[in-house]
Structure formats: C-alpha cells, structure tokens
C-alpha cells in the first residue's frame, strides 16, 4: 500500500517499495494558477532533501520544486513538457513530476501526513 506524505514546501511524495513519486499538492497548484511550464531534472541525478530539483512556472510566478527527501531520480514525467496543465488537472495523479529511489527512509519521518498538512494550509 502506497503511503502519501507532504513537505511544508507543498510537495507530496507517494512511497512504495523504497521508491517515491513526487508532485505538488492540489493546494499548491491552486495557489500557482494555470501552469505554463515545468523544468524537469535529468534522470540519474542525485538530489538531496531540501534541494531544488526543478521549476514550475505559472502566469503569475515561477516557483522552485524542493526534494522532500534524498534520493536518485529514476523517472521524470516528460508528458508535462507538452502538457503542463496536467498538474492543474490532476495534481496527485497524472500531474506527478519525478520518481526517485529513496536513499534514506528515516528522512520520511520529518514529513507531514495528510491531516498535518491540511492543518498547515
């Protein structure tokens, strides 16, 4: 069963078998407005918790994406290059951004669960 966790910087991570799919939350896409561009990282790159791994750009603002935990990027959602609106339409599903191999599961304990995140926003 996949577990969903949240970062204070509005990314979600769906954790399953030591891998994590990462995207931005419904709340984040609503705040940003219509997304017009997503800058994706290269597959194979190592990212550290809190490091910026990409950018989402809306009509209003360009916003950095921060890694919720340390790991290696094993997949990116290249569909977003031609259809960035997938993030607006389905933030937790088709709008996923990258997938990583989690290198330190302990870090996940620092993240928020759904009710904690809802409370924060």
């Amino acid at each position, binding site marked *: 069963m996949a577990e969903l966790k949240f970062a204070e910087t509005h990314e979600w991570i769906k954790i399953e078998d030591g891998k994590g799919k990462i995207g931005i939350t419904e709340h984040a896409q609503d705040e940003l407005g219509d997304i*017009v*561009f997503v800058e994706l990282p290269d597959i194979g790159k190592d990212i550290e918790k809190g490091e910026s791994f990409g950018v989402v750009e809306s009509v209003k603002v360009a916003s950095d994406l921060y890694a919720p935990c340390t790991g290696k990027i094993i997949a990116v959602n290249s569909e977003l290059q031609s259809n960035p609106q997938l993030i607006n339409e389905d933030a937790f599903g088709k709008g996923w951004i990258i997938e990583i191999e989690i290198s330190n599961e302990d870090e996940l304990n620092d993240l928020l669960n759904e009710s904690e995140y809802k409370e924060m926003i």
Partner: protein
Amino acid sequence: MEKDKLIFDKGRKGRIGVSLPECDIKEINISEHLPGHLIRKDIKDMPSLNELEVIRHYTKLSQRNFSIDTNFYPLGSCTMKYNPKVHEKIASFSGFTDIHPLQSEDTVQGALEIIWKLEEALCEITGMKKFTFQPSAGAHGELTAMFIVDKYFKNKNDYRKKVLVPDSSHGTNPASANMCGFIVEEVKTNFEGGIDLADLKEKINDTVACLMLTNPNTLGLFEKDILKVQDIVHKKGALLYYDGANLNALLGKAKPGDMGFDIVHLNLHKTFSTPHGGGGPGSGPVGVVEELIEFLPVPLIDKKNGKFVFNYKVNNSIGKVRAFYGNFGVLVKAYAYIYGLGAEGLKQIANISVLNANYILNKLEKVYNCKYNRNCMHELVLSALKQKNKGINALDIAKRLIDYGIHPPTMYFPLIVKEALMIEPTETESKETLDYFINVMIKIAKEAENNPELLHNAPHNTFVSRVDEVKAAREPNLRWYPGK
C-alpha cells in the same frame, strides 16, 4: 470597431511612400561583390504602403500606449514617476550628442566633468567612495557588483561560494548572484516584515560572500534592524550589498553607507529622471566603499591637476562590463535632476513619496488586507485575500483598474504576500490623483462583492480586452508568416 490589420496586411502591392530621385552614381553589379546565396532575389511580403497609411498605422498604435504622460502608473518598485521634459532637452544639446567616445580626453572635458560631478553627488547621497557608470541597467549593476564581490574574496584567497538574499528580494538578486557562480540561499522574513535575524545568524558563516538587501525592502518597509544586520554580516567577513531600487524613499534622508553597506547599485532611470519601462536606455552605476575601489571596472574618471582623465590603472579591476563609459545621456539627465533640485529638493522627494504611499495605505488598509501592521515607506503592499473569498483575485482587480484609466500595480510580488498588489504612487502625483485612485479601489472592492463577473472579464474599455495569458505563455508564437 474594425479589427486592426498588421502593417503587412495593409496597402497594396507596388505602392510606395516616397519617390526617390534617380541614382546619380554608377550602379554596381552586386553579384560581383557578394556570394549568390546572400543576395535576396525579390522583396515580396515587404509592406507596400504610402506615407499617409504608414503615419496612420503608427499613430494609431502609439495612441494605445499607456504611459506616465497619459495616466497614473503606480507600478510598485518601479518608481514610475514623472521625469521633467527639460532634462530631455538638456541631454539633447549638441555638445552632448555630437561627441564620440573615442575622442581624446582633452576634447571632452565638459562631458567628463559632468560624469565626475554626478559621481560626487551620488557618493554624497549613498555614502560610497567611488562609482562606475558602465552598467546599462539595474540587473547589469547587480551582476557587476557580484563580480566585484567575487574578485574581492578571490584576491584574498578566501573562496566563498554562497550569497544570501531575503525571501522578499527582487528576483534579479538571486539571478545575478547565480550568474556569477554563487549558490543562493534565502533568509526568512519576520512577523514585522523585516529580515529574520535568527534565521540570518543560522545561515551566515564563512562560506557566505555577501548578503543582498533592498532598503526599504520590497514590502515597502524600512529594515529597522539594519545596523544589527550589518554587524552580523561583517563579523563573518562577508559584504553587504545594497539594491538601490527603492532609494527614492531615502534620498537626502539616510545613506546606505551609514547603514554599513559596502557596495551599492542605483537605477538612474528610476530614481534620477529617465523615463523607463520601454526597454532602455537605462543606467545602473555601482558605488563602493574605499576597500573595494581597486576592483571597479576600468576606466575610472579622476581629476588630476584640474583636468579630468580616464584612469586605467586600477590594480585588481574586474575589467570592462560594457563598451566605453556608460549611457551618457542618462547621466546628463541625472546630473541635471540632482543639481536642479539640490539637497533640499531631494529630501522633498523622499518626504512626499513616503507621504503619498502612507496616505493610500491609510485609506485602503480596511478595504483590502494588509499583512504587516506598520507605516510604509514609498510603496505599500495590499493583499486581495478578502476579495479572494468571493472568487476575485489580484489579477482581476488589476485588470479592472485599466477600465478606470489606471495602470495596474505590480501583482503577486513580493512572493511572501498572497494575492499581492504592490503600489508605488511616487512623489509626482497630486492629491487629486491619489484620491481618484483610492475611490476607484474602494469601488472595485464593492464590485467584487456585488458583480464579480464584471471583474473576471475586465478590462472592458480597452481596444483589446482580457487576453488569454495562459495560451500566450504556453504557445508563444510571435512570428508573422506570409499569407497566414
């Protein structure tokens, strides 16, 4: 109204605007001088119009311009003030326009004297010791300053890789630092809208080269703790950089040098009488304290035995950042402006720009949200959070303002204020204009309650109404293709 055609779609094939006289020199055969693939065979698709059609086309376009000469323009942090026309006239004197940058120093003493005297005035205003006038605009000045910071540390064999910026900073600050190879880290803003000292202390260490600050900051608030900030930064051997975007609020009142800043960039085209917003020309001079003079771009302008000379002997200069000496016409206007107003006049700019902003804040703080409960400096940041509950966002309010003949304020910036509207009235607006703006803002707040659709579709009174900004950003097809 008939939809306007592009100039390519107007006129008629073969029509021309002017009758050229017969060529009275011998024609050459161009193919003897250029390779065949570089010679254009025909010029179809070139617009073919007569003079009157051309005049009407461009006059109509110009009438749709929105400018400070026609309307109120409270675009926050841009200081869209009125710039007296007399300065344009002065800058266009033939003694200034008919000189060439390659002329010898002896023949341009007057021009050099103006730059030298302007430098003297800016040193007095900012508390710096020496300026370079090469940078062509604000961000160019920031980049130049970052090169200087980098060279300063490398010269001491002290390799520092980080630059700190507040989370309210202008986007150009992190961009300039990054362009220069620094890693950028953000410092948080505290509950009063100032820099969070605890967070600053946590992030500063001996890998930090510089803290970039704007004061007043982009929330339009004065950094009350600036002396503590400079102490924290300097104790770690780092430099303090002043982004001069908001200098208008401090003119003649407080000097960045006295606050502990080591390096300053100014926007002459904002603060010192050059119209801007059209893409140039601007001027972003960089001033430094004594210790950093040796890193400035060459040449500096010095005075020797009563004569003004270019000084290329700057030991550790970062080199040149632009051809020649800067946008000279902008320097002439800044000089005329500063000497026309004098010290008392400059103080009045600060007084009135701050008064005007606070007048608006006072009248609107109950109608819109205001995150920080403080008096502001030369600009104020409102939030449309109350209106957002009704489905109206900052963008809708900004667009509706256009219907009332007012340029939208800066929107969604600074990033730490939700639904931000950043308003800078400047000192050149009358009380009547401010009252009109205030009344319109109150009216729009009522419209947001009673008739939200009106705002969603605004503007209504312009030649082009609400444009599809999302489509424009996702499919930026700007090229015209023949016949399409």
